[in-house]
């Protein structure tokens, strides 16, 4: 589904990503870990086509994102860092716009489905500006799901949610993983074994670990927090 081949990206003298490669198939949920400034967001921006890599290639469904950006972008659902949203819109209006641009079939059904899945029924007609951080994040997740993408890229999807909402979102991710490839960038390490079956740690733009969460735990036999600190130190 997703093949990232030796991508590198530099901002001036700062090497944000260095020869990063990995693959993801439908059914995979990959926890994308690393300290702040490790290159996670830049990697996700390159995969989504928001930024161009200096070298390397990204394939979605075996199609190079530079060859057919319209098709490859149509296969991606993306929740960017900080959950940017059009604050004057209501969730329903915003989702309607996303469906129209993405030419979603049965748009109203899809909108109703994500509104139900993300429990947005009570706030669907309220301006996004007035919503709490948790609701805004759920609207962000809803817009990434509404076109039923094959590849889902979520930058800290549970940040700002209360424990119950976190549980619901994790449950949703697990449910979605049957039909999608999912990348989750997170700082909550406990989340990794709970929802992910793959794990990739990067630091200073370089891959430090790739494997399953259990392999990561086995390798040191300590908690994920300790292992994470050891890998990046």
């Amino acid at each position: 589904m997703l093949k990232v081949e030796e991508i590198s990206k530099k901002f001036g003298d700062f090497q944000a990503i260095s020869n990063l490669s990995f693959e993801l198939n439908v059914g995979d949920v990959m926890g994308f870990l690393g300290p702040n400034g490790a290159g996670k967001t830049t990697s996700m921006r390159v995969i989504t086509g928001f930024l161009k890599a200096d070298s390397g290639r990204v394939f979605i469904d075996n199609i190079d994102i530079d060859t057919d950006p319209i098709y490859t972008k149509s296969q991606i659902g993306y929740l960017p860092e900080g959950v940017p949203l059009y604050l004057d819109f209501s969730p329903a209006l915003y989702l309607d716009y996303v469906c129209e641009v993405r030419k979603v079939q049965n748009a109203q059904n899809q909108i109703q489905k994500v509104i139900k899945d993300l429990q947005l029924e009570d706030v669907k007609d309220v301006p996004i500006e007035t919503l709490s951080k948790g609701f805004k994040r759920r609207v962000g997740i809803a817009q990434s799901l509404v076109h039923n993408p094959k590849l889902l890229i979520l930058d800290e999807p549970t940040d700002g949610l209360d424990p119950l909402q976190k549980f619901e979102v994790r449950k949703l991710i697990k449910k979605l993983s049957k039909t999608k490839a999912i990348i989750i960038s997170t700082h909550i390490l406990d989340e990794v074994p709970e929802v992910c079956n793959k794990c990739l740690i990067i630091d200073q733009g370089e891959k430090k670990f790739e494997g399953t969460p259990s392999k990561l735990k086995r390798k040191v036999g300590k908690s994920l927090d300790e292992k994470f600190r050891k890998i990046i130190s």
Partner: protein
Amino acid sequence: MLALIKRELKLFFITPVAYIFTAIFIMTSMSLTFYFGNFFSSGVADLTTFFSFLPWVFIFFIPAVTMKSWSEEKRLGTIELLMTLPVALWRVVLSKFFATWIFVILSIILTFPIWITVNYLGDPDNLIIFGQYLGVIIMAGSYVSLGIFFSSLTNNQIISFIISIVVSFVFTISGFPLMINFISQVFPLELVELISSFSFLTHFSSIQTGFFSFKGLMFFLSFMALWNYLTLIKFMNRE
């Protein structure tokens, strides 16, 4: 692209800001015409005075409309959502331009009471007035394309607003006699002619008569194409 244009227009009209901008535009252009243009005392049933003030109003009005176009997307981070949609970049750039232009056109159309007034008071040539309206609409597109480009350079609306005003002002007055006299003291004649040929006022003066000159029309269309292209290049080269 239609969905993007609709979204842009909704963003304009979902808050009261657009209505306030339009009201200010109409009041300013009318006030200038009635109080400074001697509309009634001139005794002529036409709208030439009204149209002659519009480029000066556009210098302030259009940058106020365009300033948030890209700046706001950058500030909120929604540019990341916009650029990752399965839509060609040129469509995204043009959708912003067309939506803003449509908004400005609506504002221009809403000055129609002055047209009713002049028809009530006299017997103007409505075909010429129609031509003048079309000319003003085309010229407004040039100001819009310029303003949107400067909005794409920064995430600060105020900076975008100020730069757009300054550049719009320069393009407006570069053919003004005072300006020509001033620059002719500094630059050679060929350069002065070149600079004045880029003046909105020079090209607008022919349109103002209600008759389109091919040269004037081509100037404004090329101007719009150039600034939209520059905006496109800006995002194609994004880091």
